[in-house]
């Protein structure tokens, strides 16, 4: 592997850098040497690694239950960040804080800020619908609307006022292509969405999220109801999506986090224990709790 070549020549009695440090160097290296395809994306690309979402001092409660405690995290733009942790640690609650999905739950209360490109989405004058348009979400179980494939995809754009037929067709094709579903459904766009397989339905839901041109995609256990083949497709898709979108994925499946993400946050009892480059977290975690959790020695 490349990495081996980059190992510094060991001199006597000097400590070698951990692989983690070398991986980090490699990442920087990749950033500078964009491939021609990437550099063609121009301005978009220049924003790479700018913290697109910044969570500051986030605390939240369900009734008396202090679910999230002093969470501070930055999500880098156009990369995949995974949030792992045991059941009930607050992963999903946290994810739902990022596009105000918890607002509708009566006993929910929170303090702190979620800054999207520097602007707090919990400011009083925030248009919540717009926020959810910018920050799309995909859920654990595929939840297509009981409508046709076409209607599912165009539901969002229509609500947001798009009427031009050509534009709508464009959005339909682009969203399905981006979600790697076009090839499988292009000749049956008016079929009922529930006729698709589970994996296809999930990609349809991703396409539906993409149709309103979000910047961020939140995924809550997007593969937990899928078989390994469908999971592999979604994971490939996540990689493709991360070239354009900021992807934040919540998963119980540590191998999945390891496979798809660049950064991983470990959440335990509502507290962020460790936030690190994924390869560091899985090779040489810095915190004892992380080590115990990912090696299954927990509890």
């Amino acid at each position, binding site marked *: 592997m490349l990495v081996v070549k980059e190992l510094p020549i060991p001199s006597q*009695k000097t400590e070698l850098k*951990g692989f983690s440090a070398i991986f980090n160097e490699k990442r920087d290296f990749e950033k500078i040497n964009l491939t021609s395809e990437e550099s063609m994306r121009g301005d978009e690309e220049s924003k790479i690694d700018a913290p697109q979402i910044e969570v500051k001092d986030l605390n939240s409660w369900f009734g008396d239950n202090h679910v999230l405690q002093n969470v501070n995290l930055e999500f880098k733009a156009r990369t995949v960040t995974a949030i792992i942790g045991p059941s009930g640690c607050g992963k999903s609650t946290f994810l739902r804080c990022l596009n105000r999905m918890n607002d509708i739950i009566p006993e929910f209360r929170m303090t702190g800020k979620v800054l999207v490109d520097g602007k707090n989405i919990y400011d009083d004058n925030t248009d919540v619908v717009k926020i959810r348009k910018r920050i799309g979400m995909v859920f654990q179980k595929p939840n297509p609307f009981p409508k046709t494939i076409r209607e599912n995809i165009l539901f969002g754009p229509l609500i947001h006022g798009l009427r031009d037929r050509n534009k709508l067709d464009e959005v339909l094709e682009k969203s399905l292509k981006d979600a790697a579903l076009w090839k499988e459904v292009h000749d049956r766009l008016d079929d009922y969405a529930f006729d698709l397989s589970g994996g296809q339905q999930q990609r349809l839901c991703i396409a539906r999220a993409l149709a309103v041109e979000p910047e961020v995609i939140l995924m809550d256990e997007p593969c937990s109801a899928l078989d390994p083949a469908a999971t592999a497709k979604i994971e490939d898709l996540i990689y493709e999506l991360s070239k354009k979108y900021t992807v934040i994925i919540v998963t119980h499946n540590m191998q999945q986090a390891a496979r798809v993400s660049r950064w991983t946050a470990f959440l335990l009892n509502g507290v962020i224990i460790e936030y690190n480059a994924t390869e560091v977290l*899985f*090779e*040489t975690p810095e915190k004892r709790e992380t080590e115990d959790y*990912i*090696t299954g020695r927990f509890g």
Partner: protein
Amino acid sequence: MEVTTRIPFHKELESLKKTVEDMSKLVLDVVRGSVRSLINQDENFALQIIKKGEEIDLLEFNIEHKCMELLALYQPVASDLRTLVTIIKIIADLDRLADYSEDICQVTIHTHHLKKVRELDKILLMHGKVDNIVRIALKALIEGDPELAKTLSGLDDEVDELFVKIIGEGIETMKEDPSSVQFTANLILVSKYLERMADHACNIAGRTIYMVTGKRKKIH
């Protein structure tokens, strides 16, 4: 092997570590035995040691197989992953230690009938130092003690010095007494084997540090 139920990963890992410990102890025996056979010019003992080497080969094979199995079935991470990968690397070093011991035994077999030469004392001295390094490296490995592993830094230099000395003096001896050439030339080979053994022991120490701390450190 009959296995009726799957054994939990951490139990498997513990029993694997135990096997590595067994292999280490066997290797230490073989290293010591090989030089003893040489010094005592004991051909039979050399043959016994060579026999033990076969056991080590088998252990190496079994351990590697087990590591692959655990990697495939459990996809371990963090310290578990480091431990498995370190074991895979270390058993190669252990095997080399055993191979060099076997080479020394072969020297015993070829030279046991010859008149002793003075370089034998130097070999004994060199072996004392190498034995110490191997012992410390294996103890650090078995106990997972990076601090102990670090104490090996620098010890290898003394071995290298002795190696150079033995070559120089060996050449002198061969010039003075042509009848000593066969034995002395072989002892120069043995000194090279011992020097390499110390290097492999240092590799083991370096990898032990990585296994436990996740930090890479080269021990010389």
